[in-house]
């Protein structure tokens, strides 16, 4: 309670962190309220094609099929946040487990897991994700799984470092002497003390996952049944000369979402490492 209160007090002092958190909260609200605040259904086509922002009824203009760009941007928040948050959660769970086991046991376990981590860092995430989606199909939850499974190494490395540093601590020795089960020592003794940097990574992972999802969408590999920002940019590519608004607004939305989680991560980082004030 005290520790987390301290954490929050330090986070509040970081202006960038607060700005980021504000952006994130705003995005969550937009995602929740999309059906209410969007002027029309984002998939519904109309006869008003490629009309510029300010056209009556279409504040941000329409695309080549006459779909409302504003509604697309608002609804796209849902896909980006769902994929971003769920993929990051998957990555964090995997990374924490792998990093904890590697750091706690050390030795050959650590060596093997270290190699696997390295392998995942060498293979370009984007290309592998492209291939997996192309072979196994897209769909929202498959995207979550693919992005999550390809994003754990960073969390694993950080958690491993924490566990290496903490496994010799007096309270861990005490738990060992008491004969506690290894899983219990890992989960309830060491992990709570190793979590601060994980929170930072989690926030940055959401930003990374949103960016990766948008990139896949831009390559035409998003969920075909839902409007996403990346797919809107893919669609905009063919109409750049006629309709700048098809590119500008979805791109702005991606940038703001990624910025929000990056800033939050920076703020969390300042709060987690009070001595590293820049």
């Amino acid at each position, binding site marked *: 309670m005290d520790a987390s209160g301290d954490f929050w007090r330090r986070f509040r002092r970081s202006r960038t962190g607060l700005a980021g958190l504000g952006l994130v909260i705003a995005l969550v609200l937009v995602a929740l309220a999309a059906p209410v605040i969007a002027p029309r259904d984002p998939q519904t086509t109309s006869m008003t094609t490629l009309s510029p922002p300010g056209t009556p009824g279409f504040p941000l203009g329409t695309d080549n099929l006459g779909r409302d760009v504003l509604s697309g941007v608002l609804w796209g928040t849902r896909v980006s946040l769902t994929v971003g948050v769920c993929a990051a959660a998957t990555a964090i769970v995997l990374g924490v487990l792998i990093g904890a086991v590697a750091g706690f046991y050390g030795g050959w376990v650590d060596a093997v897991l270290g190699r696997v981590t390295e392998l995942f860092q*060498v293979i370009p995430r984007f290309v592998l994700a492209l291939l997996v989606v192309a*072979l196994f199909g897209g769909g929202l939850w498959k995207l979550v799984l693919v992005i999550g499974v390809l994003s754990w190494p960073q969390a694993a490395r950080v958690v491993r470092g924490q566990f290496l540093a903490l496994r010799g601590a007096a309270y861990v020795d005490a738990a060992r002497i008491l004969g506690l089960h290894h899983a219990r020592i890992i989960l309830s003794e060491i992990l709570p003390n190793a979590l601060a940097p994980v929170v930072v990574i989690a926030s940055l992972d959401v930003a990374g996952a949103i960016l990766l999802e948008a990139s896949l969408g831009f390559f035409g590999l998003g969920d075909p049944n839902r409007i996403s920002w990346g797919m809107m940019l893919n669609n905009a590519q063919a109409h*750049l000369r006629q309709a700048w608004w098809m*590119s500008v607004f979805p*791109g702005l939305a991606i940038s703001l979402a990624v910025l929000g989680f*990056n800033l939050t991560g920076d703020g969390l980082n300042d709060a987690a490492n009070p001595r590293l004030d820049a």
Partner: protein
Amino acid sequence: MGAATVAAGSSLRRYAAGRLLQAVPLVLGVIVVNFLLIAMAPGDPVKTLLGEYPAPPEYVMQLRREFGLDQPVLVRLALYVRNVVTGNLGYSFAYRLPVATLVAERLGKTFVLMATALTLAAVIGVTLGVAAARRHGAGLNVVSTGVSLAGYSIPDFWLAQLLVLLFAVALGWLPAQGIRSVRQDYTGLAAILDLTRHLILPAVALSFRYMALIARLTRASMLEAMSQDFILAARARGVPERLVLLQHGLRNAALPVVTVIGYNFAFVLAGSALVETVFGWPGVGRLLYDAILQRDTPVLLGVLMMVSVTVVVVNLLVDLVYALLDPRVRY
């Protein structure tokens, strides 16, 4: 010259050899990941190895034999490793070319783009970083923080579209598409100028993120270096400030630049794939995009393989350069 240098040389060689050995299991790992993807993909593996482009039945038979598709899984893995190691990455019927040839040719064009972008990022990033460290006042700090936040958050393919909108569509200064002018056949210097004109926008789009990253790191390591005793000593000796900055400070800042470029190589490649798609740059990214549209899976697999191996090799080189630049790094 003396015993120390010789010893350092041989330890560097030993380090290099050790590092090279570490790269072998990584390359094998990459091959195994590819193999697993093919094995686990739904449907007939021949389809996966072939793509959905029509192919002659004799070739289908040949594939079954080459990859031992009716054999047990371990035999298949061994055959797959042998095929890959001997450079047999399959054949693309969409392009009527062996995948290895096709990807190698496209990788060359991607490297031209990447090298230009990274050079741009290094030159501008270091300059900005040094300037920000020198007057480490509020105004420039806000600018450099803003640039680095933007660099982290703006997707490079969207920046690419914005550049097209501004400089190609609205202003008409630079071409929006391709690697050379189609209407005119330039030779010699004119051809190089033509290539440069086509290179500017994609290179800028690709470099922005790394420019921001390098600027931030350079600033931090310059500030650290400039607070060291040897800088104070140089100033006390009356060395002109400009020389202090360049000779003593910058040398220490070189390391982070090498690090950023090296360890982000995989990301730069991915970014390049996206930027190429916007500009129709005929590199490996454009190849990926077309391969997905045409369901040309052997090309996708070939790109993943060759790109991953390239990253292993580049990481290896970066570690070696690092060891050369910083005598403290020895394992």
